[in-house]
């Protein structure tokens, strides 16, 4: 067995045990508990992160992912302040003489409307909570921001936050604090989404109409999350309206969407179903005659989200939710007898059971299924070629929230995932002959158990300490290979089905500490260690649907990330303004890349083309946000470095990571002019992406061949862009159930030709003595106007 337990070692266990044992100090006096669920009155939707604050003790509690909260207090009279941004604050007097169940329903209304909120939590949480590098997005409010082609996308909003980089023009791919694309744990209702993008990254798979909450954690990752080295993006789907049936949707330039939700049994059970589809293919099809050489070519994607839940009692509730999405690309060239059909996409399913063991102990047990499949079917005359890859998961997990006292909250749980990896595998057919030399599917079990303790040590100090113990067991079938002197593979050992191949495990301590300097400012520090057992092998500058997930094996070791962060947080003018500065350093071990002379080859295990190295990233993030008022928004700036070093790449020379970006600036602003009109704008600036160019050329077999030197030694031109949007509500005061709005947006207002990639073209001719190589820069989108009509009834 291989161990990665040398970090912090047993001292860490000791510290955690001491930390947990201190919890018991709160039990000297008999406490009474107020607990319940916080929901939106009109829909019954859980309000995740809503807070109940007890004035008398200057402490409070936040509702968990299911809207449950619990407070244990001494007997007595208290005033509870229940708040959630965008909703009317409630003050409730409670005479606490016994344990008390208090379910709360909140109404929208509020201090301000239309404010852009990157934290739906209580106003001063920025400084009062120990959490660092955590951002909560309110999906309803980000809908007012400008969007490419009018398609609202949570991943694009995330890219406007400091520390988060985009992979390029229009892309929803994101990279957090120097981490790779596979180092983000993307969860939809607790199921892992392995490829979160449509159309090669231009749209995410998340339909904004079906989303309830979105949380990004880029540092200080709590112990309940694991399996990825850099970040967590946790997206929860809406539960469905418990009170009445409603419909909402939108008609956009390239896609339309429709969502229906309502009660199955009023206040007990509800459903939501939401669909979205692009229709350029359908709109253009009538204009392409069937005799056209390219008839049958086209592209579309669609999503379907569905969720039902049933409340058996105040103690038990079941949720069943699922997602299914596909991209489909077809290309036909009748003249050449050539035909391509490429479908790919995700499917997830989650069954959850919420159970209250007591008014202090909340349990969520979950069964999860997740699947990502890519297929490619190519036909030319009598030859057919099929290519498949994917990953499939079966998971179970159980999580407990124990609300010990107002000063102590403990989360603990365990999880198991069975992974099945389909490596890039091909089959072919020519005439009557079928060929299949499929690679074995790889299988592995991933386990974890964790405990996380949030402790308000005193009014100044909050300590969040956690420990995650994770493990990974690869089982057969598996063929262990090595490369011989002739560059061919020799088999070392073949492992049979379910035969143990290798085991890894590791300790993942997680600490964050807040020290409150005064009522408006605090200092926070965190250190976390993350293990990552599965990896995405990508050979491209951009993530492609063909990128393959691979497990840790005898050859591929788990990735390890250790991140240190320190931050200063300050609010101004009674929390109207929020500001923070965070610095971080991230050490990445066992990083994976393809060797220099890699090209994709059929039926060849990807791991045989891997090389292994290390990475590190560091930087400073500055964030200033105006939270309330008619004018809201934020400015985020990041100064950062991200480097990689591999002994087998350039002889071990350090090179910048592709998403190393020295400067990154985002400005987001929104202004509500009237009930009918509101405006929003964004501006982004980023240092150009690092990329590799040839420095020399050779003539071989009559061909000009590129000779490359250092990796990522060049920079594309800086990226900057401004987007604007205006939202018009024709009848804002209408009492009718049917409501609609129009969003007019301009993407890339000043039509900046931002670089997407650079290539070289051989221009001229030797016959005219002007043969030369010319560098060309390709830009994707000039100014793109869009209009979207949204409706609800």
């Amino acid at each position: 067995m291989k161990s990665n337990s040398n970090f912090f070692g047993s001292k860490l266990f000791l510290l955690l045990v001491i930390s947990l044992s201190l919890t018991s100090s709160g039990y000297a006096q008999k406490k009474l508990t107020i607990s319940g669920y916080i929901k939106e009155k009109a829909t019954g939707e859980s309000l995740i992160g809503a807070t109940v604050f007890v004035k008398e003790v200057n402490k409070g509690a936040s509702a968990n992912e299911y809207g449950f909260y619990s407070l244990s207090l001494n007997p007595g009279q208290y005033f509870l302040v229940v708040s959630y941004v965008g909703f009317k604050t409630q003050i409730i007097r409670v005479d606490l003489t016994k344990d008390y169940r208090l379910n709360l329903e909140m109404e929208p209304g509020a201090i301000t409307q239309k404010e852009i909120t990157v934290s739906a939590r209580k106003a001063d949480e920025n400084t009062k909570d120990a959490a660092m590098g955590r951002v909560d997005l309110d999906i309803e409010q980000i809908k007012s921001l400008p969007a490419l082609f009018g398609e609202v996308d949570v991943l694009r909003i995330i890219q406007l936050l400091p520390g988060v980089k985009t992979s390029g023009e229009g892309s929803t791919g994101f990279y957090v604090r120097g981490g790779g694309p596979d180092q983000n744990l993307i969860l939809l209702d607790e199921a892992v989404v392995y490829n979160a993008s449509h159309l090669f990254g231009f749209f995410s798979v998340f339909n904004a109409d079906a989303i309830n909450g979105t949380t990004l954690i880029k540092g200080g990752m709590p112990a309940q999350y694991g399996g990825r080295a850099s970040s967590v993006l946790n997206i929860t789907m809406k539960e469905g309206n418990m009170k009445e049936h409603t419909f909402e949707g939108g008609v956009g330039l390239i896609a339309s969407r429709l969502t229906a939700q309502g009660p199955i049994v009023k206040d007990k059970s509800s459903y939501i179903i939401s669909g979205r589809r692009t229709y350029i293919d359908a709109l253009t099809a009538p204009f392409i005659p069937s005799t056209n050489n390219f008839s049958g070519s086209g592209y579309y994607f669609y999503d379907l989200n569905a969720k039902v839940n049933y409340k058996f009692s105040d103690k038990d509730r079941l949720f069943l939710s699922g997602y299914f999405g596909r991209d489909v690309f077809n290309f036909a060239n009748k003249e050449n007898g050539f035909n391509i059909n490429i479908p790919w996409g995700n499917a997830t399913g989650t069954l959850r059971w919420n159970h209250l063991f007591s008014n202090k102990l909340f349990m969520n047990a979950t069964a999860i299924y997740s699947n990502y499949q890519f297929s490619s079917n190519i036909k030319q005359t009598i030859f057919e070629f099929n290519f498949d890859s994917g990953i499939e998961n079966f998971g179970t997990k159980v999580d407990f929230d124990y609300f010990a006292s107002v000063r102590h909250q403990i989360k603990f749980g365990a999880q198991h995932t069975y992974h099945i990896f389909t490596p890039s595998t091909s089959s072919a057919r020519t005439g009557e002959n079928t060929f299949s030399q499929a690679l074995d599917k790889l299988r592995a079990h991933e386990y974890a158990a964790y405990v996380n303790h949030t402790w308000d040590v005193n009014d100044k100090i909050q300590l969040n300490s956690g420990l995650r113990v994770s493990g990974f067991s690869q089982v057969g079938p598996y063929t262990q290979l090595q490369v011989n002197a002739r560059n061919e593979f020799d088999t070392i050992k073949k492992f049979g089905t379910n035969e143990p191949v290798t085991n890894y495990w590791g300790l993942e301590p997680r600490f964050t500490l807040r020290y409150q300097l005064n009522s408006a400012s605090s200092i926070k520090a965190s250190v976390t260690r993350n293990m990552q057992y599965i990896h995405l092998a990508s050979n491209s500058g951009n993530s492609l649907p063909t990128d393959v997930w691979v497990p840790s094996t005898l050859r591929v070791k788990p990735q390890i990330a250790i991140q240190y962060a320190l931050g200063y947080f300050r609010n101004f003018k009674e929390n109207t303004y929020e500001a923070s500065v965070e610095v971080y350093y991230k050490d990445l071990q066992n990083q994976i890349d393809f060797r220099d002379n890699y090209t994709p080859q059929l039926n060849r295990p990807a791991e045989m083309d891997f090389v292994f190295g290390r990475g590190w990233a560091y930087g400073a993030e500055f964030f200033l946000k105006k939270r309330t008022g008619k004018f809201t928004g934020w400015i985020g700036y990041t100064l950062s470095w991200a480097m990689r070093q591999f002994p087998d790449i350039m002889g071990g020379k350090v090179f910048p990571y592709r998403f190393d970006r020295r400067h990154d600036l985002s400005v987001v602003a929104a202004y509500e002019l009237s009930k009918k009109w509101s405006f929003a704008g964004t501006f982004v600036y980023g240092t150009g992406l690092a990329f590799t160019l040839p420095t020399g050329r050779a003539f071989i077999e009559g061909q000009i061949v590129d000779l490359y030197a250092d990796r990522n030694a060049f920079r594309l031109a800086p990226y900057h862009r401004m987007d604007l949007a205006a939202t018009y509500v024709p009848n804002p005061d209408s009492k009718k159930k049917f409501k609609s709005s129009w969003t007019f947006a301009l993407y890339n207002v000043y039509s900046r030709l931002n670089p997407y990639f650079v290539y070289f073209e051989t221009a001229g001719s030797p016959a005219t003595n002007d043969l030369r190589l010319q560098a060309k820069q390709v830009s994707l989108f000039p100014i793109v106007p869009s209009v979207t009509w949204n409706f609800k009834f």
Partner: protein
Amino acid sequence: MKPVFFWIAAFFFVTSCEKDITVDLPKATPSLVVHAQIEPDSFLVVSLTRNSDYFAPFDGGSLQSLINSTVSNATIIASDGTITDTLEALTPDRFVLNHYTFFNYKSKTLKGKFKGQYSIKISTPEFEVSGSTTIPDSLPLDSIWWEPKLNPENDTLNRQLVRLMYRYVDPITPGNLVRLFSKRNSEAFWSSDFRSLYEDALINGGTVIFPIRRGKEPRRFGLENPPREENGFFRRGDTVFVKWASIDRATYDLWRTTESADAGGGGPFRTPVYIQSNLKATKGAVVGGFSGYGTLYYSLIVPSL
């Protein structure tokens, strides 16, 4: 997968904008460019040239300028384990030419044979390079034939075009690798679009029927390109030749990476590929490699309409 991404890219970037830019590239590491090959019953031939900076002038890009870039002061010693031969340097008028592929060194006595092993050592004042290759056993084709172009439109050109097909029975042992070239009439042998490789990873031990695209000179310097519809097809009345050469893994990797490093590519899906040479430089740097070809030739005549 290359064609797939080509079409995806084509589909994807219809709205894209493009402009010329200036890129400031550093000087290239001076390297010896070696293109050495040996075939059964043929002398070992070597082309020795130098690389150049990426944007260096092409001097008109003429054949003469390429010839001028050759390295002519090398000592090349080759051996098959029995015969050791010092290659003779050829003067330009004696270069072994295949349009823009030329060889300026040739063995005097050493010739290739199936299942032979060959080593080479190249010395110049700046470079010391050595390596080896093998000529694998032959991998004969079962047959070749022609078919009319599929769905020919009702015009004169398309009715003139034919597709060349082959039938190949792959041996049961895995790892059979081939480079494929074709030509018609008196033209020179070329791969099609610098894509010449075949491997049996997918069809090992099976029988495959597949088209052979017409070889295409990479850069038809000063020559007019054939019409797009003709791309990959032969014509009625052509005498068609196929060069089908078994190669070892190292030669396969050399050409797999060289063909992927062809200039003029690019795009978001393209990643730099560093050429995997089967030569090692103990002094200076080397690009290219030493290919052993177990070549078999086939031909047929496509009757006129």
